[in-house]
């Protein structure tokens, strides 16, 4: 099940942030409340081997591009097999957000909901294929 997360949007630059903030970081205007889907693509991640007091080692942290625009810092159970570009689901446990790898069904559902009209869906599929081919080219080179 994909959750929805509270977020806020800048009426001026359309920046979406999660968790919500009162003022846009770039404009002195009040943000409008909105929500974003609790799933998205990993932008970067790390495993901290000497975390600060109050956290257990190893500590997994990821930055995730949520569907709907916001980026979120969250914890995870593990980073094994995780890569930049991996799809993860976000879940709130207490007040803390956790990421977990997505199953095929969830990924399909996310993809379907993200790309609205049929034409957009086709172009999204084409873009995704092109991106994979491009990445594969670099991997072959190195």
């Amino acid at each position, binding site marked *: 099940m994909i959750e929805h997360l509270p977020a806020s949007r800048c009426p001026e630059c359309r*920046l979406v*942030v*999660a*968790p919500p903030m009162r003022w846009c*970081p*770039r404009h002195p205007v009040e943000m409008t409340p909105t929500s974003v889907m609790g799933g998205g693509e990993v*932008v*970067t*991640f*790390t*495993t*901290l*081997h*000497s*975390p*600060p*007091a*109050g*956290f257990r080692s190893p*500590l997994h*942290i990821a*930055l995730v591009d949520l569907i709907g625009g*916001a*980026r*979120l*810092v*969250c*914890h995870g159970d593990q*980073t094994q097999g995780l890569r*930049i570009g991996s799809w993860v689901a976000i879940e709130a446990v207490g007040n*803390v957000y956790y990421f977990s790898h997505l199953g095929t069904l969830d990924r399909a559902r996310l993809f379907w909901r993200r790309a609205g009209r049929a034409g957009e869906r086709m172009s999204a599929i084409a873009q995704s294929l092109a991106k994979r081919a491009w990445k594969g080219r*670099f991997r072959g080179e190195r």
Partner: protein
Amino acid sequence: MRDVWIAGADMTRVGRLEQRLQDLMAIATHAALRSADRDRPDSIVVATMNPEEFLGDANFASNVATHMGFANVPVIRVETATSSGAAAFYAGFAQIASGLARTVVVVGGEKMTHLPTPKVSELIGRSLDPYERSYGTTMPAFAALVTRALMARHGVGEREIAQVAVKNHANGARNPLAHFREEITLDMVLGSRMVADPLRLFHCCPISDGAAAIVLTAERATVRVAGVGQGTDALALRHRESLTSFRATQAAASAAFAMAGFGPERVDVAEIHDAFAPFELISLEDVGLFPPGKAGAATLDGETALDGRLPINPSGGLKARGHPLAATGLAQIVECVWQLTWCVPRRQVRCSVALAQSIGGPGTNNWVTILEAG
């Protein structure tokens, strides 16, 4: 705007030091005044990042001015996290450029090695966004998130990043004031303990004590301040547009070059904020010294070594000279002054324009300072 000149510069040794911070800052100040052949400044600008928590001292501008025998000289303190020294330099520069003062001493210092490492990390980490901090993000974690994104980019791998540390240690070995004076190898870096994946221990700068001071003057001297620029960015990493470049450095560099009236092609030597080795590669591109995506390969090819096309961090950088927080921005400028006045045997670079770049907190308040031999 009046021309601003540097009449003197000096610093203490960097490392695990016994003296109190007030003593270190007094020693640096008196030495810088002696090298400038002056007895007393019109005003003093003090930089310390966090004496309240590192030492339990507040009202630190008056504290240190009184300690060094300048109780009756006007003094202020400037703070922009880890770039406080560069920010203080700007405050002193502005006092002279505006005609408010004719001679200003800028002195920065920090004392941290008396505290246990986890405590120091926690105190430095408080300069991060509170929400991201609540997820256990420390400065190394922030740097690791940036590094992972950087390495996903074509042209930056483990060897390119590790070579920054190897090169800066080689330079530090030639600097008698440096914290680390031992050369290291690529294998030592790649084999060192993982701190925050993909960052290893030898990618990170040490915790150091030290102080540095500069004497600025309205009278013609051997080194002229050609440009000073500041740049800022959102505190939270999740609010940034780019992870693999720092907007704050780019803005600081363009402001500094605009003031100088020339571009990066005239820079002969630079001191760059390598608190974490990959930050040197990011910063070289942000400042415009290398085209985007080229700093890694250039480093591996030796272009940034002492005998390379554009020597970077001849002092050893934060990695080997050490990183006594608020002293660092000024220690970089001290090295630039010494390079421009040809007084650093064993690591002297042929130069007439030098640049220093300083990062405040997680790249939120950065500075670029450009100096020119007069």
